[in-house]
């Protein structure tokens, strides 16, 4: 090789390599990105006057909340002169932002939407304003109209910390036509053993017997499975006298029995790709005629009976299946709360009273695009007495109300639970994390990748890190 060619070659190499190096560094910058909370408040249009004040509300982006944010200028701001700025957030983001904001003593929001899991815990921590005095003094709110289980689930020591906007329980939905064709009948209050028997009997290559959640997550597989665990007599932790966590109970025989039953039922008569299935996946499979039964949130019934649903009118509804207990359905609510350090709780309550009061439900029925079936359900007994709602939701309204009222919020299982009340979760802050990590283990059992004993032992280790 001549000196000249070697030199040019080196220069060439050097140039390409430097370009590559620069490109690589540039890529690093792009790949790192950032995960902005994107909590930009979005205005809700013009305000008639400034005298009513202005509040900022953090909400979760579900259809009913999108409806209310669209109706606010017309139905609320026009009446009261209070401007409402909504921050619509995705569920996980909302939980993060609100926990940081309230826990850290920030003043970003006047009203926050939180779930039934957080409300009593945050209330007990002193992070939220006690709404009971407001609710009692406000005639238009009709405090006594709230469904008692929902009210209890959002309260600690008789103090209401969040006002329910939407609530749901769980029940069993099934294809009445399929069961009839197979010569089977579903009792109104079935046991899990009866349900499993029916599921195995109707299961075939085209149609699975039952759809159960198998996707990791404390609110996915964790919710469904914990209701089964409760009624099988198991629990995540035992409780001390003062309500604190005593010991992890994942290694107990009841827990194993419940998990064996749950994963066994999915394995023999469950849906395809169960380890990836949660509400949406099961909804799609049920509507597509790929499963005969489905145990999930009561709110699903509204979707099954909608005008565009292929299975409209073909369904039966039964209470959540039981084993050792009398009722096992879960209880969940999205509710509005006022942070403790809110500068103007009176204005904030004015908004909450309107958004979660009976008048909004009446108004929503005629105003929202989805009609009466799309109003926020499950919070008030009066909702189920509205004739138009009865007509639109006749197929499932009674079953839903029954499930809501029966949800065993005070005593979900056979033994005392630690923390604040909860059915499909344990009312302690650590449950979210323990539930997420343990359901990852259980989900891999459902996928057939891990055996039950290994998963339970890992989960017992995870749960044992709490309390003690």
């Amino acid at each position, binding site marked *: 090789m001549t000196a000249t060619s070697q030199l040019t070659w080196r220069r060439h190499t050097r140039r390409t390599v430097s370009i590559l190096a620069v490109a690589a560094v540039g890529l690093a910058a792009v790949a790192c990105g950032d995960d902005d909370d994107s909590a930009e408040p979005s205005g809700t249009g013009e305000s008639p006057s400034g005298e009513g004040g202005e509040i900022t509300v953090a909400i979760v982006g579900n259809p009913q909340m999108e409806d209310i944010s669209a109706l606010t200028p017309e139905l609320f701001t026009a009446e009261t002169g209070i401007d409402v700025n909504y921050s619509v957030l995705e569920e996980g983001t909302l939980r993060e932002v609100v926990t940081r904001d309230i826990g850290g003593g920030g003043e970003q929001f006047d009203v926050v939407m939180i779930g039934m899991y957080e409300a009593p815990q945050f209330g007990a921590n002193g992070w939220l304003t006690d709404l009971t005095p407001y609710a009692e003094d406000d005639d238009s709110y009709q405090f006594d109209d709230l469904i008692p289980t929902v009210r209890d689930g959002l309260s600690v020591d008789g103090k209401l910390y969040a006002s329910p906007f939407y609530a749901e329980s769980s029940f069993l939905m099934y294809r009445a036509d399929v069961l009839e064709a197979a010569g089977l009948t579903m009792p109104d209050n079935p046991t899990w053993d009866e349900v499993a028997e029916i599921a195995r009997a109707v299961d075939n290559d085209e149609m699975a017997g039952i759809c159960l959640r198998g996707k990791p997550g404390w609110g996915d597989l964790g919710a469904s499975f914990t209701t089964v665990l409760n009624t099988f007599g198991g629990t995540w932790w035992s409780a001390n006298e003062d309500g604190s966590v005593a010991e992890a109970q994942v290694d107990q025989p009841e827990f194993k029995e419940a998990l064996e039953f749950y994963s066994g039922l999915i394995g023999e008569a469950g849906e395809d790709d169960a380890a990836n299935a949660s509400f949406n996946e099961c909804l799609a499979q049920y509507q597509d005629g790929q499963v005969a039964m489905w145990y999930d949130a009561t709110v699903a019934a509204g979707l099954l009976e909608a005008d565009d649903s292929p299975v409209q009118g073909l369904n039966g509804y039964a209470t959540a299946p039981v084993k050792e207990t009398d009722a096992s359905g879960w209880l969940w609510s999205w509710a509005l709360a006022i942070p403790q350090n809110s500068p103007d709780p009176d204005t904030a309550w004015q908004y909450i009273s309107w958004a979660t009061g009976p008048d909004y439900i009446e108004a929503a029925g005629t105003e929202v695009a989805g009609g009466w079936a799309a109003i926020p359900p499950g919070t008030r007994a009066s909702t189920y007495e509205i004739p138009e709602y009865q007509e639109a939701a006749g197929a499932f309204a009674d079953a839903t109300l029954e499930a809501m009222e029966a949800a065993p919020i005070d005593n979900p299982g056979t033994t005392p639970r630690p923390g604040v009340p909860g059915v499909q979760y344990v009312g302690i*802050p*650590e449950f979210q*994390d323990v539930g*997420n990590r343990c359901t*990852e283990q259980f989900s891999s059992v459902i996928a*057939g990748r891990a055996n039950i004993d290994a998963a339970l032992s*890992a989960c017992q*280790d995870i749960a044992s890190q709490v309390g003690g």
Partner: protein
Amino acid sequence: MQLDTVRQEPGAALGTAPKHDELRRPWRQRLPLLPALVFTVLLTQVPFLMNIWYSLTDWTIVPPTPREFIGLDNYGDLPSDQFFRDAAWVTVEMTVSAVLLSLVLGTLLAVLLDRAFFGRGVARTLLITPFLVMPVVAGLIWKNQMFSGLYGVVNWVTARVGMDSIEFVSRYPLWSIVVVLVWQWTPFMMLIMLAGLQSQPADVLEAAKVDGASGFGTFRQLTLPHLRPYMELGTLLGTIYLIQVFDQVAVMTGGGPDSTNIPYFVYQRSIGGGWEFGKASAYSIAVVVASIVVATVALRVLSRLLRGEEIA
């Protein structure tokens, strides 16, 4: 020849002079750079130092507990933390297999692209495309359109040959993620190797041909040694990036045994529900240390290449 010698002389003579000059240049000439430097330091180094400080504390915000200084306890717990070890092992498996597979595939594709053929430009552009897809999008596309047991393309193909449908992501989470990573990172490796191939001096190859060397022999004995530094570079850069994979894990499996790597584990232990910022900071520092070790080696290789040292 003469020209080269002449041109090299002033360079050799100046070898020390500009350096000397550089040192004596007054600070005020560099002053305009200072705001940018301070900004960069504030933005990158201060958070890092705070992260180190957090890693020395016991800090949990749910349930709210006061932050406590506990020294190196968080680090001391690392080796005995079974879930951290699992996550670390998954990170190693994921990174090593994705890097090696994409390197092999990238080299093969680069050898193909190094030949002249009709439509080479189009083929090269198409091959690079996967690298330009956002990681979240790539993860979702593969999960839903390719791997899905119900309506995935892969299962449609395997069904044609009479195989049962397989739920890839639930059954083989690690390998599903590795496939997506390889799909995305093969173009990166291909580009590096292509640069290497195109910098190979033609006269050497010509001499080999004249001497009667076979195609494969030339590749094995001349091209591969020539490509070695490029392979090292690709491996090390790829490793630095792939240690940090998060998006594909989050959207494809959402964590779990066999798919939670350290970055996802750090997320879970902190804002993902664990709320243990002290421990999570210690985990992330451990990853940073591992990355720095890899990066240091990478930079050595890089500088060796830049100096133009011949290896083989």
